């Protein structure tokens, strides 16, 4: 099992960051790597079990199922159902925690998965450095501009 963990501090309250990222169908509106997204079978995007079907900007198609959503913990957990990345048993969690001494929050994004031998480093860099850190960087830029 490979584990990737990325964390950051975003200069905005957990409430406002959560409002931007809570929508399981909303990746294209905040993550620079994602081109489009829809939820399969016309389900609402906050129904646990729904599947989002989206494309990355380089054309890859990914399907992910929502496994857990908590407005109380500002957290969301999902698994990959189908993707071109070559990962298996991929489960990821995105979670915010308020930082009480200022208008900011601590953001964590982690994933566990299996992959073919020899691809660990490449996938860790892509997922941790590209997807997770890329998303945090976009959030930081967004909230720095306000």
């Amino acid at each position, binding site marked *: 099992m490979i584990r990737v963990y990325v964390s950051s501090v975003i200069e905005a309250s957990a409430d406002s960051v959560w409002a931007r990222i809570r929508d399981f169908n909303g990746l294209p509106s905040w993550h620079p790597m994602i081109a489009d997204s829809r939820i399969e079978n016309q389900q609402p995007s906050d129904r646990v079990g729904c599947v989002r079907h989206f494309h990355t900007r380089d054309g890859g198609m990914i399907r992910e199922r929502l496994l857990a959503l908590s407005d109380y913990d500002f957290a969301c957990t999902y698994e990959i159902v189908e993707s071109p990345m070559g990962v298996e048993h991929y489960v990821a969690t995105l979670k915010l925690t308020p930082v009480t001494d200022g208008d900011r929050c601590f953001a*964590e994004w982690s994933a566990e998965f299996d992959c073919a031998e020899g691809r660990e480093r490449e996938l860790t860099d892509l997922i941790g450095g590209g997807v997770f850190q890329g998303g945090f960087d976009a959030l*930081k830029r967004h909230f720095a501009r306000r």
Partner: protein
Amino acid sequence: MLQRVIRSTVIDAPVERVWAVLRDFNSHDQWHDIVAQSRIEAGQASSQVGCVRAFTLKDGHFIREQLLTLDDAQHKFTYCIVEATVPLERYVSTVTLKPVTDGRRTFWHWESTFASPSGRENELRDMVAKGVYEAGFENLRRYLERGADLRAPGSAPMPVALPQPCRRVMLSAYGGPEVLVVGEGEVPPPGPGQLRIRQRAIGVNYFDVYLRRGWMPSLLPLPGTPGMEAAGTVIDVGDGVTGFMSGDRVAYMAPQPGAYASVRNVAADLVLRLPAAVDDEVAAALLLKGVTADYLLRDLGRVQPGARWLVHAAAGGVGLVLCSWAQRMGARVVGTVSSEDKARLARENGCEYVIVTRDYRFAEAVQRHFGDGADVIVDGLGDAARQENFNALAPCGHWISLGQATGALQPIDPDLLASKSATFSRPVAFAYVATRARLAERAQRVWDGLADGSIKRPPIERYSLEAASGAHERLESRRSTGALVLVA
């Protein structure tokens, strides 16, 4: 009814360093101001789960707390009060540290539940939240800043640092680029207030050329080493320095030359820690140049939307930052450059119009483009362009003489300025970063500008320390674009 208190903060140190202090269940009388004295009962180790710390607070209260969980894998410990003169009942508290992976910082979460006598809930909640947790955050922050965890009281002094060998450019005569010759030397341990820095990237500025030519012998007496800025890693910390530890990535700009070297001692007051997103070469390429653009735009030139700026050497190190920033702030920017390639780069960096000229003829084109001239001229050209610059100036314009690549500017007649009601300035960057806070503020704006795209990462031409003469030749030939950096 149980009360719950949660407080959290971010500490500017790696999680391992914060955890090394906090995992010692008996360390709080060293870092937390509220605690007078503490000891672990029955001679147990402070890492023994189940051990009890007995301590007094400075206000006289006495408390015994037991360690219930200690988790080095998750950087977490839980403890409870077993006896106290403060009426906190069923008090159980957990400290959790987590790494902030994109900046080597630490998220610190401290939470507890407890009961208290009715009528005193608010008082006791405040005591825990503010008096213990929030004050603890501040106290530990200061404890780490002054490096108290690196040299615990009563422990053996740090081993004495030895002189470090270094390579440095040593000038034994003033003259052309060929006088830049590398020699071997030694850098002593840092003195009080100093940091010894292993330099990875050194910024090359046109000012270094003036020093090399011998225009400022009092600033660079012979034999001497030129260079005003560099970036690298702290290797030793001198006495009395707070806020730095070895291994920190840093950059500095210093009013005293000496940066063309692989190792150097620098006053800690001039040194800034670098954000993770800014690598050494970008820092060396941008610190002095970015700070220069910052004071030119915000302080000296007071850029306004619609203001008309003329920037010479618009594809150079300062020029690129200045043009793109000025344009972002609403100014209209005209640049001059010496080639078509540079014109393209200048246009990509905010110039609305670029004049290609190798003989310093531009006043007429500027007048035509702007109507009646430029409100602000940033002049690195010097004497050969003196008349052209004056002609390019709009009424009430501001002529800022930043450099004199073509030769020392002859004295300006006040009556000449009066004929256009003009202002003439001759700024020195270091006057605009006289305090550490000013320097940090300006540098932060430069890094923020890089992050939000208002400044682009400049093209960087790299030279080894041994090739410093090549770097100067290139800079003086007017063929370089962007910033030049020596890699040590």
